């Protein structure tokens, strides 16, 4: 089974092809927010390099959010458009799951943090065990202030952080969590379509496919209370 996966939820535009669980090609650009101009040519080149045609793809997968509203709409529109035209099923993967998959195998918690502005983050807490199932979500998907996240993190195992907000908050996390805080090297921190594609592969192989018509974005927003809290802490 061949899966074409896209992640355009953040600064990185990324596309990948996964065939029977193996990444056969991946193309990522972290340059400017020009996803609407770059993604389709990237898909075209990737498929050509793999001697594939769009009709050879069995499943279309996409990171559905949280993240940049505009970026999500671009990625989801591409997947819906291609899957509808070719009459193929789709899989939607929460962006936070995709990021957590970047670190699967880490023995501890994995905590993706995506910058949601004004010191808020989109986040969730995963545990990763050395088992086939990989990662499992231990909390809800949340949009919260970084301080609130720090206060509510578990403290029984090391926590690895991933996501664009790591660049902004790594010092704060280290100060507050000490030895429990693990910051991976920068090449693992951002969205990768191969991670999304791998998560798609697991879902697709258990038959969890949906119609392109039912794919919807997962928009998360901070509550007004949190927005105001961010403000108070700054002043």
């Amino acid at each position: 089974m061949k899966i074409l996966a896209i992640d355009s939820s953040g600064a990185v535009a990324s596309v990948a092809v996964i065939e029977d669980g193996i990444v056969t090609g991946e193309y990522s650009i972290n340059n400017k927010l020009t996803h609407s101009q770059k993604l389709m040519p990237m898909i075209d080149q990737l498929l050509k390099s793999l001697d594939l045609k769009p009709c050879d793809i069995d499943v279309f997968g996409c990171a559905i959010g949280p993240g940049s509203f505009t970026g999500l709409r671009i990625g989801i529109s591409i997947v819906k458009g291609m899957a509808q035209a070719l009459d193929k099923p789709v899989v939607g993967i929460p962006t936070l799951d995709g990021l957590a998959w970047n670190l699967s195998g880490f023995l501890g918690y994995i905590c993706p943090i995506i910058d949601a502005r004004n010191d808020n983050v989109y986040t969730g807490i995963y545990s990763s065990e050395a088992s086939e199932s990989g990662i499992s979500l231990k909390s809800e998907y949340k949009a919260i202030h970084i301080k609130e996240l720090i206060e509510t993190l578990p403290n029984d195992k090391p926590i690895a952080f991933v996501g664009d907000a790591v660049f902004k908050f790594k010092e704060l996390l280290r100060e507050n969590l000490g030895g429990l805080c693990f910051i991976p090297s920068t090449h693992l921190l951002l969205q990768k379509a191969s991670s999304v594609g791998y998560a798609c592969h697991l879902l697709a192989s258990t038959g969890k496919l949906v119609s392109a018509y039912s794919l919807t974005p997962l928009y998360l927003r901070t509550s007004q209370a949190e927005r105001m809290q961010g403000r108070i802490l700054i002043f």
Partner: protein
Amino acid sequence: MYEIITKSENETRAIAEKLGSMLSAGDILCIFGNLGTGKTVFASGVSKGLGIAEHISSPTFTIVNEYMGKLPLYHFHAYRINSNEFLDIGGDEYIYGEGVTLIEWPENITDVLPPEKLEIHIDYDSEVIENRKISLNPLGHKYEKLTQNFLEEIK
């Protein structure tokens, strides 16, 4: 809060043009003022200062207009939207983007705007009908410095 009195539409446009020429990427201007006080006149001055040749019209119905000058200008009219609607259209991607964001009627979306910005209040002058009182309220160090430099320039 700093106050400037302008005596004509052209003078308002001229000082706004000066301010526009001093802005940098990521700057946020919030313009408060009743109907007819000249918010859009101020905006057109800012756009000229940013080197935008195009005529600026009020984005009353489009909510946001984008222009390309020395820097991009994102001109918002937020009268008919609330914070969630602002986020729905990717508003935060504009205000944290690579251009200058100018927002008319920011009252309804203040909770999604960053705490640091330059607030500009335009009021009628109670004595002379053509005059406008322009009050600058810089929030944050960057905007305090910008305002000081700007006042020095237009002295």
